[in-house]
């Protein structure tokens, strides 16, 4: 029985109005395609790249070929300041940057949904306390908060994921709280209450599924923001640490005028990748918002 319902749901998604609206949105489709290509190249990076991203390349005479342009070094995007293949690093960095964004958003969405649901459903004192906590966290520029915690703890990929997750939940909490306040008074929830369903059951199987759409949109937009934040942190040196490549720390070298002017291959590709990924995810998020929002007319 359960299985049949699931299959039915799947079909409904691709025939649903939401999907129809989404598939008409050109920018959202382009965004989806770009992100899919990026995910695929990141997943199959070991099969695509020729040179190891962590090893300095050597010329035939045995000297390390650092700061070489694509043409000189015979690689696709040249080499960096210690002679590593920029193209290999770019693909491996995609893995790091995207997974940091994904995990961080996962953590913050879970925290935000839980706190928002509790706050909106129970109201009263708990609600006041949680909302004041949201106000407190919102007063800190998120970057400042993340930077100070990342500096105190050892900056590593996992710490960055956790810290970003712990600092970015307030918007989701507010959103879920508002949605729950709205849905709580609707008849089907009232019916569940009067049938004696437990609070847990009401929140997680009656309310949350019905406020899923805005949560997904919010999470998508925050994914874009998370990738930007990770890049900024790594650029400042408190994010992903070398030798592990991330799009942000690949741009650290570009702080010198010499790199900026004479070695564009060391900063243009990584920067463009961040822009392209973030832009695509923002397009997807915007497309999803329009698709889920049936009231909006074009």
């Amino acid at each position, binding site marked *: 029985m359960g299985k049949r319902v699931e299959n039915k749901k799947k079909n409904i998604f691709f025939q649903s109005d939401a999907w129809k609206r989404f598939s008409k949105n050109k*920018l959202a489709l382009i965004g989806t395609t770009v992100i899919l290509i990026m995910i695929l190249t990141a997943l199959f990076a070991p099969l695509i790249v020729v040179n190891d991203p962590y090893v300095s390349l050597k010329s035939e005479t045995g000297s390390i070929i650092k700061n070489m342009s694509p043409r000189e070094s015979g690689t696709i995007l040249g080499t960096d300041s210690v002679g590593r293949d920029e193209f290999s690093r770019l693909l491996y960095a995609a893995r790091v940057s995207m997974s940091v964004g994904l995990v961080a958003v996962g953590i913050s969405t879970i925290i935000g949904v839980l706190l928002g649901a509790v706050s909106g459903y129970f109201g009263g004192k708990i609600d006041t306390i949680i909302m*004041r*906590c949201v*106000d*407190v*966290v*919102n*007063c*800190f*520029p*998120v*970057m*400042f*908060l993340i*930077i*100070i*915690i990342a*500096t*105190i*703890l050892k900056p590593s990929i996992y710490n960055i994921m956790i810290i970003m997750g712990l600092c970015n939940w307030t918007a989701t909490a507010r959103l879920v709280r508002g949605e729950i306040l709205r849905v709580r008074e609707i008849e089907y929830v009232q019916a569940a209450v009067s049938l004696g369903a437990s609070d847990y059951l009401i929140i997680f199987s009656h309310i949350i599924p019905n406020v899923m759409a805005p949560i997904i949109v919010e999470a998508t937009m925050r994914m*874009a923001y998370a990738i*930007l934040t990770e*890049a*900024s942190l790594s*650029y*400042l*040196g*408190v994010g992903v640490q070398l030798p592990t490549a991330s799009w*942000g720390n690949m*741009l650290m070298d*570009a*702080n010198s*005028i010499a790199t*900026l*002017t004479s070695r*564009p291959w060391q*900063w243009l590709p990584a*920067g463009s990748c*961040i*822009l392209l990924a*973030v*832009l695509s995810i*923002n*397009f997807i998020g*915007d497309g999803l918002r329009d698709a889920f929002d049936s009231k909006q007319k*074009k």
Partner: protein
Amino acid sequence: MNKYIRKRLVQAIPVIFGITVLTFFIMKMAPGGPLTGMISPRTSSESLQRAREALGLNDPIIVQYWSWLKELVQGNFGYSTYNGQVILDMILQRLPATLLLTVTAFIFSYIVGIPLGVYSATHKYSKGDYGLTFFSFIGISVPSFFFGMGMIYIFALKLDWFPTSGFGSSMFRGTGMALVLHKLRYLVMPALVMALANLAQVMRFARSSMIETLNQDYVRTARAKGLSEKRVIYKHALKNSLIPVITIFGQSIPNLFGGAYIIEKVFGWPGMGLLGVDAINNRDYQVLMGLTLFTAILVLLGNLIADIMYSLVDPRIRY
């Protein structure tokens, strides 16, 4: 002074309390302590113990928090672990540069963002609207350091219109107007980079707010009266559509300050962000904490002012 403002002020008290508690406990996580900057290898463990006792570092944590809070209220943010300087002095010395940068970026993003948003709304689904929407997506998606590098590459290195970084050259001997113009040339690029993301947001917000206002009954009435479209938009709709834009005024303050770290590093701008970057490199936790606390308080004040302004402008707001 209405009820809303009073309530809003009362609400701010637990938030200030929360800010200090959070800051204090993050600071307690930091390795070392306020004494680290003053210890030399020759400091004996006895005198260290005596200093710890004198500073109350052996007291229960609640007592420590209380005495820290008392100092804080008197404006004592502590001392740098790196060079022992007074943190508040360090911050206040850098504050004007950062304020100049953020306020310029702020004003620019509103002056340009609102007209563009209104244009977008009144020309909904036209080519210009799509172009502006696309531009706003780029604005919120481009990493500020990458955009900054691009600006430096094009406008400083290739075209040589603006200096690459810093805030004024020490070689410059001009005074008065010449000095102001000289400094302005350094301000243009970082302020533009800082404004971009905010501008995009203001524009999107102004657009949706204007579209919503244009669907209101009183706008329909104004049109039905036969007023010209210009009069409807600028006389009836514009003012009301601008009210919600004030709300993002409050929200964008933390974002602007948060961007300071990156932008001041890229452009070598001598503000609080650069102070923070140096503190990161020196592992100077006390200064980082002082900066974070200081900006949090600034943000709280900014939000309060924005909310109070909002309630004054829009009498419909009742708490």
